[in-house]
C-alpha cells in the first residue's frame, strides 16, 4: 500500500502537535485534549500498520487504548473539577503542591 507513508506522516504530525501542546499550554483541559490527540495519533498508526501488515492485533490494541483513554478522561476530568473547586483555576502552574 503506497499511501501508508501518508498515514504515518499524518499520525506523526498529530503526535507532535499533541506533544508540543502538552509542553507549552497551561490550561489543564487543553493539555488533556493534547494528550488525547497523542493517543489518537498512536491509534492511527496502529490501524494503518494493522491494515498494512494484515494483522488484526493492532486494531485490538486500538480498542484497548480507546478504553483506557475513556477511563482516563473520566478520572482526569473529575480531578480537574475537584481542583477547580479548591483553587478556582485549572491552570497547571497552580498545581505545584507535590514538590519538596
Amino acid at each position: 500500500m503506497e499511501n501508508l507513508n501518508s498515514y504515518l506522516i499524518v499520525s506523526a504530525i498529530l503526535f507532535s502537535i499533541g506533544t508540543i501542546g502538552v509542553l507549552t499550554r497551561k490550561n489543564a483541559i487543553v493539555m488533556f485534549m493534547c494528550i488525547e490527540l497523542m493517543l489518537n495519533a498512536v491509534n492511527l498508526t496502529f490501524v494503518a500498520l494493522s491494515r498494512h501488515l494484515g494483522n488484526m492485533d493492532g486494531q485490538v490494541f486500538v480498542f484497548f487504548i480507546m478504553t483506557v483513554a475513556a477511563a482516563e478522561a473520566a478520572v482526569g476530568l473529575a480531578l480537574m473539577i475537584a481542583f477547580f473547586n479548591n483553587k478556582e483555576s485549572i491552570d497547571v502552574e497552580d498545581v505545584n503542591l507535590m514538590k519538596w
Partner: protein
Amino acid sequence: MFDNVWLIPLFPLIGFLINGLFGKKIKNETVIGGIGAFAVLCSFAVSCMTILKLLSLPGEERVANVKVFTWITSGNFNADIAFLIDPLSCVMIMIVTGVGFLIHLYSIGYMHGEEGFYRFFAYLNLFMFSMLLLVLGNNLLLMFVGWEGVGLCSYLLIGYYFHKKSAGDAGKKAFVMNRVGDFGFLLGAFFLYWFMGQSHNVWTIQFTEIAKNAHLLPTGGIVTVITLCFFLGATGKSAQIPLYTWLPDAMEGPTPVSALIHAATMVTAGVYMIARMNFLFIRSPETLMVIAVIGGCTALFAATIGTAQNDIKRVLAYSTVSQLGYMFLAMGAGAFGAGVFHLMTHAFFKACLFLGSGAVIHSMHGALHHAHSHDDAQDMRNMGGLKSKMPLTFLTFLLATIAIAGIPGFSGFFSKDEILWQAFANPHHGQLNYLLWGMGAVAAGLTAFYMFRLVFMTFYGECRINPKAKDHLHESPMVIVIPLIVLAGLSVVGGYIGIPKVIGHIVGIPNYFENYLEPVFKLSEEYMAQHAAHGAAHHSVVLEFGLMGVSVLIALIGISIAYTLYVKNTSLPAKFTATFPALHRAVYNKWYIDELYDFMIVNPCKSFGRFLWKGFDVLIVDGIVNGIANVVMGFSGVFRLMQSGMIHNYAFSMAFGVAVILGYYIFK
C-alpha cells in the same frame, strides 16, 4: 591408700553451704560458729590421719595422686579433680587446717555480736575449701582454682564491712592485684603446657607428670620465661614487690581474717607454688636470681615502712610482707626446704601476733565504746601499759615477738637463720650472695626494732587511752585466749623439728623437717649435683656460726634501740621526726608507692579508656557511620530540588528523554 583425702576440702565446703544458705535463719552464733569450726576440725583430723599414713611409708613412696572425677577433657587437654599427697602438701594441709581451726575458734569470740556473723563464717569456710584445693590440687588448673578461690575469699572478707568505702576499695585492690598475678600464673601454665606438648609431645598439667618429664626441659631459655610468669603469679598472691601494696590495705578486714588469710595461709601460696615446682625453678638461674633479689628487697623495703606505722595491724602487715620476702629469698637461693620451714614457723608466730593484736583491738574497741570515745582502737598512740590489763595476751604476744625477732631458741631463729645462711652460701648467685645476706640481715635488725617498738608502745609505759575508757579494758574470753596460747607455744617449740645442720650436728638432733621434705626437692638436688660441679664452695662451720652471731647481734641492737626510744627515753622519736621530717614523712606514707601506682597506671588507664570511648567509639566509628548517613542525606537534599511540582518540567524532561533515546537509536 589415701582414698578419703577428698574429705579434707569437702568438710569446709559443707560448712560453707550450710552457713551460706541457712546461716541467716539459724541466727544462733554458737551453732554457726560451731559448724564452721567443727568443719575445719574434721579436716584437721583427716589431715592428721593422712600425714601419719604418709609417714608410715618409706621415703620414696611418699607420693600419691588421688583422682575424684574428670573435670575437663577436650582434645589433648585433660584436667581432673584430683589430689596430690606428698610431704609438701601434707605440711601445708596441717598448717592450713591446724592454724585455721584455731582461728575459727578465736573468731567465735572475736566476731561475737557482729552483723552478718553467719556470712563471716561462711566465707571463712569457703576460704578453707579453696586453700585446701590450692595445696592439694594435683594439677596446675586445680591449683589455679584454689588460687583464684582464695583471692575471691580474700576479696569478700576484706570487704566484710562493705559499708565502709575504704574496705570495699581495699578488697577490690587486693583482687585486682591478685589478678595481675593470676595473669602471670596462667601464662606460665600456657607456656609450660604448650612447650612440653609441642616439643616433646607430653600434653600434661599434672605436677607429677611434669616432674617426671622435667629432664626434657632445657636450662634457662623457655624455662626462664615459664618460671618468671609463675613468679609474677607468686608476687601477686604473696605480696612481693611490685604487687605488695594490697596487703597493708587488706587490714580493713576483721583481724581473724588478717591472721588466717593475710599472714598464715593465703599469702604463702606463692611460696608453696614455687616449692611445688622447684624442679622448674632450679632450671633457670636467671629466675632464681630475680626471685632472690625481689625477696631480699621486699624484706628490707617493707621492714623500713614497718618502722614508722602507728596502726598496730599495719605494722604487722608490713612485717608479713617482709617475712614473705625472706621466704622468697630462700626460694631464690634454691633453699626450698628452708623457705617452707620459715613458712611454717611464720604461720605460727604471725598468726599469734595478729590474733594478739586482735585481742588488744577488741578490748580497746569495747572500752572506747563504753566511754563513747571516737579514738582509733587500732592506733598504738592510744594504747600503752596494757601489760597489766591483759597479761595472757601480753605474754603470748611477747613470745611470738621474740620468735619473729630471731632470738636463739625460738622458732623464728632457726628458720630465719637457715635462710640467711643459704642466701650467703648458695651456689647460684656468686658475688650477689653477700648483698642478699646483707639485705636479709639488715631487715632482721629492722624487724626486731619495729616488732619491739610495737610491743613497747602497746604494752609498756603509761596508759595513753582515754581515761574514761581505762577501766573497761580487760582480758579477752577464753575462746580467744586459748588459740593464742597454743600458737605461742608453737612459736616457741615449732622450730625444733628443723634445727639447722650446723647446730644439730653438735647437739645430735637431725633436721627432721628437711629430711621429711627431701623427696619433694630430690629432683632439684639431683639437678644441682649434675650442673653445679664447679660451684658449691665449701664454707666453714666457723663462718656459719659467725654469721649467725652477727645476725643475732643485729637483732639485739634493733631491740635495744627500740627499748631506748620507746621505753627509756620516749621523747627521742619525736625529736628524730623533727630532725628528719622529709624522711619520716616518706616512710610514714609508705614511700608514696600507692600514689605512684595511681599516677603511673590507674589514672592513665582510666583516661585512656575514656579517650577510647569518647574519642574512638563516639567520634571515629560512630562518626564514620553517622557521617555516611549525613553524606547521603546531603545528596538527597540537593536532588530533591529537582522535584519542582511543575507538570511542565516533568513533561519536558520526559519528552527530552524520549527524544534523546530515539535520537540515539536513529543516529547510531
